């Protein structure tokens, strides 16, 4: 059977089904395949907080969105070109985002009366002409999968679990791909379970062949590889990138990495990744709670090791007192906050940027801590590495902000060579340097104290959470000393601005009408929106903050070159408070607090609105 091959520049596919339908696996496999054929890509997995949410219902829908193409990709895409819906609920909750004329691939078995009722359809959308503006392919995926697996000795339930592979096989066919990487994956994953392995491979091939032999599909699609910078790439998601950055920093410094943590969505994957790499000497410690997690890290830091704890907003709240202790002790450690929608338990699997003020201010007392923010999955590697460098070179706890969108989203990464990573200067005192008594709070020109660790003769000293006397570190209740120490601790963090790069403009000119100033995971949406507006002739620029405390020294000057500063955030306005406070400008905010990323199109509209002001 010959099919016409249509060429596409960019494609957005959304895989959607019940949370037990295996859509995340399909998405991840398709992502790896997409990356390996040289497309640029961005992904957005979106799943319910429940492991098996009520079947067939709208809240139970799990989705995986991928945007790939032959041009640079910065977001998972605003609207879908293709929607794969395994049941009625998946169609209902996603149809609004499918572009007119887009392709719907619908599993007819998921549109039985029960599914229709659970998803709130009064009539079956497959029978109506309400889908007439789309290209609809109705496939009984469940039945076809069962038929393909007739000679496999598995129960119907188990066979049905392979239907995601049928879908994947079909999509591979549709986009002219070779399914080899997935076959290898299945072979690895089910090497001890030959029946399940065979079932999955068979279903995958059945889906592929189905496309090939069925006349219903007239076209296949081809997307050219993206013109990306030369180099070697891999696909990476945010949490593993953080883990790799930490291991890299540990290897570079020769410090023992200790990750003390407590499981929490969406941060746990950092633990899972680190726990796999014990042959790098990584010690992972699943503590009894969030407080114990950071306290164990303080203990390890006191012992001269690289201590890191990771969590999400609720966990950061619990760690606040201990972070204060680390600030007081002036010990290096890193706190990762993979943000999620709050307050309280909030929306655990949905993304938000609402812990920025918590990161900057959320501790008792005057308690300054550097704050760094990752902006894309691959940037997590650099941020983790840089956080370690900052922590040990400036003897301070450092907060790293990521979020659920970055944590789970994937992109191609032109990864660095270990030898090219920046040097890190560890300030551990190896031996007593003079005959005089060791002064634990004596500082160098950057106000940084020395790291004196147990086991070093002559450096015995006591530190604690009570206010320190300057230089000696003895307990002091002296009022003047307290004021001095509060100022010293703040100044020490502010001076880090001398060691970070100046803020640059990411897209656009260094002066103009509107500067869109962002931080964190809004990077892709801002970049896409601003790039398009520039092409359309607007004087718009984009700057993206990586350093939030301290802010880059030139930021005030940089933003003063624009008539308007627009700060889009997935929160109710947090960076905007810091910017207004520090630079006394009338920055404008754009706040989307729906647990989903800001889209390019809604941001473009907002930029144009501010443009008119």
């Amino acid at each position, binding site marked *: 059977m010959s099919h016409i091959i249509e060429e596409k520049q960019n494609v957005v596919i959304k895989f959607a089904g019940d949370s037990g339908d295996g859509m995340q696996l399909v998405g991840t496999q398709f992502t790896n395949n997409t*990356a*390996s054929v*040289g497309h640029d890509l961005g992904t957005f997995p979106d799943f319910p907080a429940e492991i098996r949410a009520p079947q067939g219902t709208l809240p139970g829908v799990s989705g995986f969105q991928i945007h790939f193409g032959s041009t640079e990709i910065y977001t998972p895409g605003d609207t879908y070109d293709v929607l794969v819906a395994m049941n009625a609920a998946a169609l209902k909750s996603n149809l609004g985002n499918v572009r007119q004329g887009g392709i719907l691939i619908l599993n007819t078995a998921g549109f039985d009366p029960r599914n229709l009722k659970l998803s709130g359809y009064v009539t079956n959308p497959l029978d109506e002409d309400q889908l007439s503006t789309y290209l609809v392919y109705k496939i009984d995926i469940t039945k076809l999968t069962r038929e393909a697996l007739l000679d496999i000795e598995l129960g119907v339930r188990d066979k049905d679990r392979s239907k995601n592979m049928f879908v994947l096989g079909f999509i591979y066919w549709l986009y002219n791909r070779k399914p080899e990487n997935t076959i290898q994956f299945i072979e690895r994953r089910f090497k001890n379970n030959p029946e399940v392995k065979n079932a999955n491979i068979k279903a995958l091939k059945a889906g592929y062949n189905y496309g090939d032999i069925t006349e219903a599909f007239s076209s296949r699609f081809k997307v050219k590889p993206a013109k*990306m*910078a*030369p*180099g*070697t*790439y*891999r*696909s*990476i998601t945010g949490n593993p990138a953080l883990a*790799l950055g930490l*291991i*890299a920093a540990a*290897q570079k410094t020769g*410090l*023992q990495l*200790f990750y*003390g943590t407590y499981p929490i969505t969406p941060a746990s994957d950092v633990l899972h990744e680190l726990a796999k*790499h*014990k*042959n*790098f*000497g*990584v010690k992972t*410690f699943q*503590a*009894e709670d969030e407080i*114990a997690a950071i*306290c*164990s890290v*303080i*203990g*390890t830091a*006191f*012992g*001269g090791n690289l201590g890191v704890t990771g969590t999400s907003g609720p966990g950061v709240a619990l760690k606040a*007192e*201990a972070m204060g*202790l680390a600030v007081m*002790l002036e010990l290096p450690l890193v706190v990762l906050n993979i943000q999620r929608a709050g307050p309280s338990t909030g929306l655990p699997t949905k993304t938000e940027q609402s812990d920025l003020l918590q990161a900057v201010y959320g501790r008792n007392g005057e308690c300054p801590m550097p704050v760094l923010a990752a902006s894309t999955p691959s940037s997590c590697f650099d941020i983790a590495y840089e956080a370690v460098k900052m922590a040990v070179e400036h003897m301070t706890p450092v907060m790293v902000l990521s979020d659920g969108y970055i944590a789970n989203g994937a992109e191609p990464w032109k*990864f*660095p*060579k270990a030898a090219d990573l920046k040097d890190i200067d*560890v300030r*551990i005192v*190896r031996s007593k340097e003079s005959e005089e008594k060791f002064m634990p709070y004596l500082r160098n020109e950057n106000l940084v104290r020395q790291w004196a660790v*147990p*086991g*070093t*003769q*002559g450096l*015995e*000293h*006591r*530190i*604690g*959470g*009570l206010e320190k006397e300057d230089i000696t570190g003895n307990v002091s209740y002296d009022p003047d000393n307290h004021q001095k120490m509060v100022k010293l601790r703040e100044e020490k963090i502010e001076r880090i601005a001398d060691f970070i790069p100046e803020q640059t403009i990411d897209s656009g000119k260094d002066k103009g009408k509107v500067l869109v100033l962002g931080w964190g995971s809004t990077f892709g949406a801002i970049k896409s929106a601003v790039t398009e507006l520039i092409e359309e002739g607007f004087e718009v620029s984009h700057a993206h903050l990586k350093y939030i405390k301290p802010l880059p020294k030139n930021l005030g000057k940089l933003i003063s070159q624009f008539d308007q500063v627009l700060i889009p955030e997935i929160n109710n306005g947090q960076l905007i408070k810091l910017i207004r406070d520090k630079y006394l400008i009338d920055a404008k905010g754009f706040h989307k607090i729906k647990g989903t990323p800001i889209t390019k199109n809604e941001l473009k509209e907002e930029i144009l609105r501010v443009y008119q002001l």
Partner: protein
Amino acid sequence: MKIKVPVKRPAKSESDQTQHNGGLTSKDFASGQEVRWCPGCGDYSILKQMQTVLPQFGIDKENIVFISGIGCSSRFPYYLETFGMHSIHGRATAIASGLKATRPELSVWIVTGDGDGLSIGGNHMAHLLRRNFDVNVLLFNNEIYGLTKGQYSPTSKLDSITKSTPLGSLDHPFNPSAFALGADGTFVARSMDRDPKHLQEMLKRSYEHKGTSFLEIYQNCNIFNDGAFFSYTEKDVKKQNALFVEHGKPMVFGHEDEYGIKLNGTMPEVVKLENGDSMDDLWIHDERDPIKANIIIRMESIYPKQNFPRPFGVFYEGQRPNYEILMQAQINNAIAQKGKGDLDVLIAGNETWTIK
């Protein structure tokens, strides 16, 4: 990073309490900071006994770390010329866990109190004990909150009249030893501030135990709870009310050692030796028996009418692998199996592609 691995020097003479091997004396362990507990506080004695036994361990000062939480007891590290950390309320156990996990060669001591260790830090205490890090917990129990000026604590007796309970406390108190045994602690002992010899002995036993040593120390707070333990600590009544258990020895107490404890099945019984029972009939203490240890520490509260004495000494000592050793072993095994990690290979992952 190279860190000096401490060498344990063999102790020459344990009876000599000031002059010792390696040249260190108890004075070497005094930090020189002015001690600021209330005059007459039981903490002074505990500090003195600690400073006395430390030189006998034969470890260099720089390889000893004291970590405390918050409360009167938690000022302890300031007064010892070792590494130390006065941390936050209830968390010394968690901080010590992280330190010991990554620096297993250090001698790590946790100083805590009944409020710090069993109330706000009760969670961490239980987990420390079950993990069995090789660290030593000194829990100063004075059955009151001293630093916050006199509220009842989780070990205060029922109906305690305190600032926060003017009509009497309603909380059933913790039995710290039972708590430790319940969390599968591998060393559970009790001593008192006012018996220096016994306390020194218990501190040494704590140090020698490979695993988490849980030593509860009765400590008199002469300001807010004066005399809470006098019936066990004061000369005139001590022999009658306190039972000092020793491994392999019969359980005997009383001014003239005239009382003993018999064990009939699982039922303990106080007997007067002159009434027909001899030493041979008494319960012989076996530190290795966790079931009997539970009977020892609970008999007084379970059978209140029988006037059982309050037990002191090592109730239980068992063996279980230490977390920090297992943790390192996993790493060593991983390296043996997969080889030492190569950072470039790790960063590249399983699937890469090249664009020219």
